[in-house]
Structures are given as structure tokens and as C-alpha cells.
């Protein structure tokens, strides 16, 4: 399998690298410029991309993470697929918007959290209500990696997280310490840091946040 990640910090690459390592998937990792078109049928360049031996091309980071996970014999239950859908539909656009204001426009992190704040509250609530170590139970799952990867660029320094999100903070700190998360973050970010992310974000169309918030009761 050939996994192509962005050479310039696309926020979605982190989770696939962490998931590949967590699932011990045998992948050849390549790096490409963000504007490189790796998916032959998509007009807009997308990264990360996983190319399978069969010729199948996966261009959705969450589908790639799911693939690594289900290859080990796991399957997504309702709660996991709800988290993954929520992450793609609500969290990703909101995080991208916040990152854009912060990294490209130079606004303070506290001021750009905006819509994301409600989503963080939703995650914090899910953790504290369930009283579990991880998002879907006491075992780490693909959901944790996907959510962590999404939030990492925004909250890698967990001290920026508002005080009231205690459960979320504990979860973030724990995720940051996990071996596969740490090494994914190091390998992806060591040479580029925020500058690489900035180059990536400047090339993105501004995300449209369609829905204020959509969470379960």
C-alpha cells in the first residue's frame, strides 16, 4: 500500500499516520506537495491518499483510518460511525476555519475558537457523561485517533483549552502521550511546524460552516 501525505502539514494527514502505526499497517509513506494531484479523478488536489494493490484509491482520511482498523477485523458500531460522520461534517470545517484565522490571519487562539468551542463542549460532555477513558469506551478506538488528529493543530498545547473542559483536556494530554500519536506528530511536523500548515491553509478555499451545531441529546 502506498500512503501519500502532504509535505506541508495538511491537517488530515496526522490521523492517518497515527492510525497506520497503531494498526501496524505496512505502508510505504510518500510525501507530496499540497497542490499535487494524486487522485486521478479529482480536480481539487486531496491529501492524504491511500492507494491499494487492487488499484483502489482512498482520498478520505477517515475512510483510510477505518480501512486500517477494519483490516484488523474490527468493525464500526453505530456510536463510532456517528462520531466519524460528525467529525467530517461538523468538526473538520470548523477547525479549518479556526486554523485559518489563527495561522493565516494571525488572530489569537482564544478568539478563533468560535463554533469549535461548542464542539469541544460536546466532546467534553460525552467523555464526562460516559465516565470513560476514551471517546467510545475504556479502550482506544479509531474514533479517538480521528478526533485527536483533527484537533491537534489547534490544541497541541492543551493549556489553551478553556478551563471548563477538564475531561477533554485529560483525554488530549493522554492522546498526545501515546506512542503512535507522538511519532506521527513528530514525523509530520518536525521540519515544517506552523509554517508548513500556513502554506497549506493559504491554498485552501475558505471552508463554509453550514451548520451551527448538530449533536445528539
Amino acid at each position, binding site marked *: 500500500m502506498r500512503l501519500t501525505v502532504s509535505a506541508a502539514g495538511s491537517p488530515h494527514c496526522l490521523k492517518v499516520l497515527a492510525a497506520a502505526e497503531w494498526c501496524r499497517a505496512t505502508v510505504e509513506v510518500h510525501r507530496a506537495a499540497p497542490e499535487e494531484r494524486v487522485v486521478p479523478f479529482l480536480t481539487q488536489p486531496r491529501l492524504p491518499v491511500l492507494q491499494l494493490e487492487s488499484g483502489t484509491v*482512498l482520498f478520505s482520511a477517515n*475512510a483510510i483510518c477505518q480501512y486500517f482498523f477494519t483490516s484488523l477485523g474490527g468493525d464500526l458500531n453505530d456510536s463510532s460511525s456517528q462520531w466519524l460522520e460528525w467529525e467530517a*461534517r461538523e468538526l473538520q470545517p470548523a477547525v479549518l476555519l479556526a486554523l485559518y484565522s489563527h495561522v493565516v490571519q494571525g488572530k489569537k487562539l482564544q478568539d478563533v475558537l468560535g463554533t469549535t468551542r461548542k464542539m469541544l463542549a460536546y466532546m467534553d460532555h460525552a467523555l464526562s457523561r460516559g465516565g470513560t477513558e476514551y471517546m467510545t469506551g475504556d479502550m482506544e478506538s479509531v474514533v479517538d485517533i480521528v478526533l485527536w488528529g483533527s484537533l491537534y493543530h489547534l490544541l497541541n498545547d492543551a493549556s489553551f483549552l478553556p478551563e471548563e473542559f477538564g475531561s477533554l483536556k485529560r483525554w488530549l494530554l493522554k492522546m498526545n502521550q501515546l506512542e503512535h500519536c507522538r511519532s506521527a506528530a513528530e514525523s509530520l511536523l518536525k521540519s515544517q511546524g506552523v509554517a508548513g500548515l500556513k502554506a497549506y491553509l493559504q491554498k485552501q478555499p475558505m471552508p463554509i460552516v453550514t451548520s451551527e451545531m448538530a449533536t445528539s441529546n
Partner: protein
Amino acid sequence: MAVPELCALEKSLGLRQGHKYSSQGDNGTVPVLQSNNGPSLVGLTTIAAHLVKQAKKEQLLGSSAEEKAIVHQWLEYRVTQVDRPSSKEEIRTMLKDLNLYLEDKVYFVGMRFTLADILMYYGLHSIMADLSIQEKEKYENVSRWFCHIQNYPGIRQHLPNVVFIKNRLYTNVH
């Protein structure tokens, strides 16, 4: 918008109706499946996959890890790309991309009919209905796939039939 679609899906799956839905989000675009025993489920693809499992038609979610991931990818595409408010230009780009993708495929997962076909069909219905005959010819692979799915037993339900002309009218559309 999503709720009638889920009701149509229930019928196509042969499920006894009686699920209660509500919606949330801007303009009520995100469906919620209410439940008497346990938490409610939120989101179109999550609920659709739940209904498929309830109908014991898991093969519609893909049978291998690879097929499952492809189904997941196109369900996500449905919710994040097809359902996003888009300009005419963006819709054209999407149809062009899908046309290229479907060039060598019968269904979204190659030779296997899955939930991805059903939800992409529902999601693209209004776009396809608005296309001129010339545009339908331009996106010929999307049209072929769409026509195939709308004739698939039990899928179309309440949706109007979109007309495709069998013989080409325009010769130089490429």
C-alpha cells in the same frame, strides 16, 4: 430533506416503518433517529447504516475491509460535498469528477451495489433532474450509473423518474 430520504430507504430495505425522526442543524438538514431504548442516532449516513444492519443487509455496507472503506468514503462525500451549498461551477466540477470516477465502474464499489449508490442517487437526484439533455450526455458515465440505480428494484420510491435519452442527440459534447 433527509427524513423523506430515510423513509424511502426504509421502504427499499423492506423494513417495517415506524421509526421516529426529527432534525437539527441549520435548516434542519441533519436527521435524528429517535429511539425508545438507548440514545438517539444523529446523521444521515450513520442512520442509513443502522437501518441497513437492522434489515440484515450488511452486504450493502461492503463485505471486505476495502469495500467498507470505499462505501464509507462515498457516504462521507455525499454528506460533505454533495449536500454542501455549491455554486453552479462547483456542481459542474463535482459531476466532472464523478464522471471520471465512474468511467470504468458499474457501481461506486466497482461491481457491487451498495448503500453508497443509494445515498448518492438520492443526493444527486435534484441535480440530475435539472440537467439539460446536452449536459446529461456530457456526464455520460454519471447518467448511465444514475439511470441504472433509478431502475434498480425498490430504490426510486417517491422520487420522479429522470428522463435519459437512449440515443445521443449531440455529437460534439467533449
